[in-house]
């Protein structure tokens, strides 16, 4: 087995997500180059994990920008709901007026029919 054949398995083996097969393990046990690479991958992974607890201090104004952006979004949303509220009220009024008109027309038609029948 050549070192290059193990190339894509060593980094995964370093974090334990892949278990090397018997042949691969036997190669690594005898190959100083692959052993060194495995150790190097582990060092890189340890250093990466240690970065998890580090924070990078934001430049001034980041928080203010986020909050201002949210504030603007909140206002836009409020305006939209106000407009859609007005629309709903307008449409509701229109529907009520239509229903009232239709009811009036029915009453009027019935009355006209009764008058025709009586005469």
């Amino acid at each position: 087995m050549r070192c290059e054949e193990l190339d894509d398995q060593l980094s995964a083996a370093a974090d334990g997500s892949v278990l090397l097969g018997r042949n691969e393990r036997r190669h690594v046990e005898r190959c100083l180059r692959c052993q060194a690479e495995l150790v190097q991958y582990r060092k890189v992974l340890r250093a990466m994990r240690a970065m998890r607890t580090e924070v990078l201090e934001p430049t001034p104004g980041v928080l203010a920008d986020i909050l201002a952006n949210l504030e603007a979004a909140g206002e836009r949303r409020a305006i939209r709901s106000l407009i859609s509220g007005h629309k709903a009220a307008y449409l509701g009024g229109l529907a009520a007026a239509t229903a009232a008109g239709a009811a009036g027309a029915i009453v009027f038609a019935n009355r006209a029919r009764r008058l025709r029948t009586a005469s």
Partner: protein
Amino acid sequence: MPQDVADLVAAAQGGDREAFDELVRVTYVESYTLALRLMGNEEDARDVVQEAYFRAFRGLRRFRGDAQFSTWMYRITANCAATHLGKRAKHRHEMLDEADPIADERPSSDPQLQSDATELRARLTVALEALPPKLRQVVVLRDIYDLPHEAIAAELGISETAAKVRLHRARKKLREDLFPRRAEEAADAV
């Protein structure tokens, strides 16, 4: 007013705007840190973190609390970063192809700097910044923030296989940057 993040989330989900603002105050440094690591520069990180909180604000009702709020924010931030990078790529061509060799001006060639773990981390930061953005995103999300391949693939809009391939390439590049082989070793290997 120190409050539990879960309480703030519950209050914000109930429509309390001040609770959401407080949630931002409590978590924005971590989200910004991730955005900066993913984007590699402050200007883009600011845009990404603003967009991430805007999306979180709009989608807060969908947060079910089965993960930590910070993990949920990591996923949104990663998604925003991927979108941002996609937009940027549309507007201008990358100056360097991913495979192009880059002149090595990093401190990795100085053997005196290679012993100490603190130094290793400092050099790792530089090496991460030098990675192509597509590789950097995957390795940062997997190896620093411990997101599973499935989540990384979903947020970056790539397949799990592509995520694994990029992770391997990124780790290999980092290792080679941090532990450069001496010329005679490289010659022996040929």
